């Protein structure tokens, strides 16, 4: 028991040294090696993007992101709880409260692999419907003859509209984990699982009432394309909601947050999921994502109206919301 522990500790120390080296060197070091090995490829594919603090060709980013999430899929939920100390549940609950979906709404959750948002959505709508039914029965406790005859005549019309949630993810592993969760929770009705790319959704125009993307949009290579697709598949009046890590406004909190992100999270990733590099990518990609105001402008440019954002936990997470009008 002692030997593997020692091995693990040594690995952790070695990786943390590498971590400090990398964050000190920044993008230049890594990108140097990348260019050294394959100069021709870099010249022809001159559009690069960021993968964490690395610079990679755009075509490669999607593949690398896929691999990251393939690796972490099994332990994704556990890691979420560990890294955010369980606060991510509050963030997602608040997202649902702000959304306040009406019964009969259709949700598209993009990048929602393990299904957190979709499950909460179905629960919320169910409880709304129950509340409505209770209110209706309470008001009907002394029905007049008119009401009774009306009820009999409208019995064959279909009941309250079904709300449906579609979970779309580019990564099959994440969807598999999500499906297992749904089966174990016993939620099956009104839920579908679709493999798809946020930049090119496999849906028709004007399909959904609400489009959410929770902690997924920073992994997309072309964010503006994803926003355009969101606009396309939403019905008129539909709502776009994006929950994402963002810039912390308070400088004290920012220092603590940075220290926690770069020191603790990759270590947790190594200990719990056995994957340092994926969680390194995760915290780096948070830093590369545009801040609240800039992202708000991007959403407005895509054609959404009434765009606004809410900061949670001092700016650690921001919820952006826009309407297709």
């Amino acid at each position, binding site marked *: 028991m002692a030997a593997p522990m020692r091995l693990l500790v040594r690995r952790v120390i070695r990786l943390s040294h590498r971590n400090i080296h990398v964050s000190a060197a920044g993008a230049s070091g890594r990108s140097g090696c990348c260019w050294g090995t394959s100069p021709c490829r870099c010249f022809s594919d001159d559009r690069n993007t960021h993968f964490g603090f690395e610079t990679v060709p755009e075509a490669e980013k999607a593949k690398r992101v896929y691999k990251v999430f393939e690796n972490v899929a099994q332990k994704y939920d556990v890691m979420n709880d560990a890294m955010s100390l369980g606060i991510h549940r509050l963030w997602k609950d608040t997202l649902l409260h702000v959304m306040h979906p009406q019964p009969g*709404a259709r949700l598209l959750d993009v990048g929602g692999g393990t299904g957190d948002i979709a499950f909460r959505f179905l629960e919320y709508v169910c409880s709304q419907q129950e509340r409505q039914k209770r209110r209706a029965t309470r008001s009907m406790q002394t029905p007049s003859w008119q009401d009774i005859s009306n009820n009999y005549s409208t019995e064959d019309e279909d009941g309250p509209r079904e709300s449906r949630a579609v979970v779309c993810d580019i990564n099959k592993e994440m969807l598999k984990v999500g499906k297992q969760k749904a089966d174990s929770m016993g939620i099956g009705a009104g839920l579908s699982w679709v493999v798809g790319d946020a930049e090119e959704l496999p849906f028709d125009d004007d399909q959904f009432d609400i489009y959410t993307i929770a902690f997924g949009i920073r992994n997309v290579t072309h964010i503006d394309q994803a926003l355009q697709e969101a606009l396309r598949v939403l019905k008129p009046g539909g709502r776009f909601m994006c929950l994402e890590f963002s810039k912390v406004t308070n400088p004290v909190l920012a220092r603590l947050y940075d220290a926690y992100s770069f020191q603790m999270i990759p270590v947790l990733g190594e200990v719990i999921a056995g994957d340092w590099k994926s969680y390194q990518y995760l915290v780096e990609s948070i830093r590369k994502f545009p801040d609240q105001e800039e992202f708000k402008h991007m959403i407005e*440019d895509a*054609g959404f109206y009434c765009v606004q954002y809410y900061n949670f936990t001092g700016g650690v997470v921001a919820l952006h919301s826009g309407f297709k009008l």
Partner: protein
Amino acid sequence: MAALLRGLRAGRAIRGLGSVVAAPTATTPQCRSLRRSFHCAALRLQDESKSDKPPSSSSTTYHEHYQAHTTEQYTTAASQGDSASDPAAEEASRPNTSYQDQSGEQGEEYETEEQLQARILTAALEFVPQHGWSMEAIAAGAETLGLSSASTGMFYNGAGDLVLHFIAQCNSQLTEILAEQHKQVQLGQAEPKKTADFLRDAVETRLRMYIPYIETWPQAMSILLLPHNIPDSLKHLSTLVDDIWYYAGDRSTDVSGSYHPRSPSSTAHTFLSPSHHHPHDIRPATIQMNWYTKRAALTGIYNTTELVMVQDSSPDFQDTWNFLDNRIQDVVNMASTAKQVQSTGEAVVQGLMGAAVTLKNLTGVNQRR
């Protein structure tokens, strides 16, 4: 008509509105879309000050493209929304271009967000008897306009927005009616009413607008009493009372002791009008609070009558109108009583002064030796 279209097309080209619009199917939608796009550009320039979103050229062209795609979808929704949008359109300030009248429909994305919200709320009012003053009513209203129920997220105040919108709508309707009556009187087509009658009719007209929603009105009143809604509801109430007094002929603008010019239309003020009964232009201190007294009195009358109306079950709310009559009569009586007390008091004071002088004469104190 052809020249107009050519001019529009030229205008568009000059503005350099960028990428080519996807070829619209028929010519008539094209004409309409061109007109609307020109109109939209005009509206956008005007609305830039209102909306804080800078309209980028890319979004404009995207909207044109999008709109050409979905003209058919919007025809039904827009024609439905047209009748509902007229009162809302009158409230909001729109450029008075002739294009507005020629095109039979309005593109929804070319109006400001406030106008769209006003339209949704107006459409939601017809679902209030069924769902109450709530987000469900707003969602049902949005659906009749062809928008998804998720658009209710725009209303951060939820049911409060709906109630306040309804009250603002009622107030503007009342103002129109009163202005119309005023015009009739100016033209000499109608007799000017006495102030008491005028107030009674105004309050009755205003309260009758609640009759379709009277079942759910207690819920609306409780929503208005929520702390974050109180400033807005008080503002609406004070505007209402001010408007009624304005059309009743009260033009006082200050509370100092100066003489207030009387309005030409109302010559039959019988109460709470000081200059009538003070030929010497003496203005005692009580008259200085005239402006506030009038409005406070009317506010009290209005609120109490509303409460009576909510639990009134007589045919056509006859009890409520009787109550209203009695309250106005009370105020009239009180005003004339106040005046009588005042003049009596002055008379008594004068009598006492006279008695004192007589006494001094009798006792010889007044004599000069």
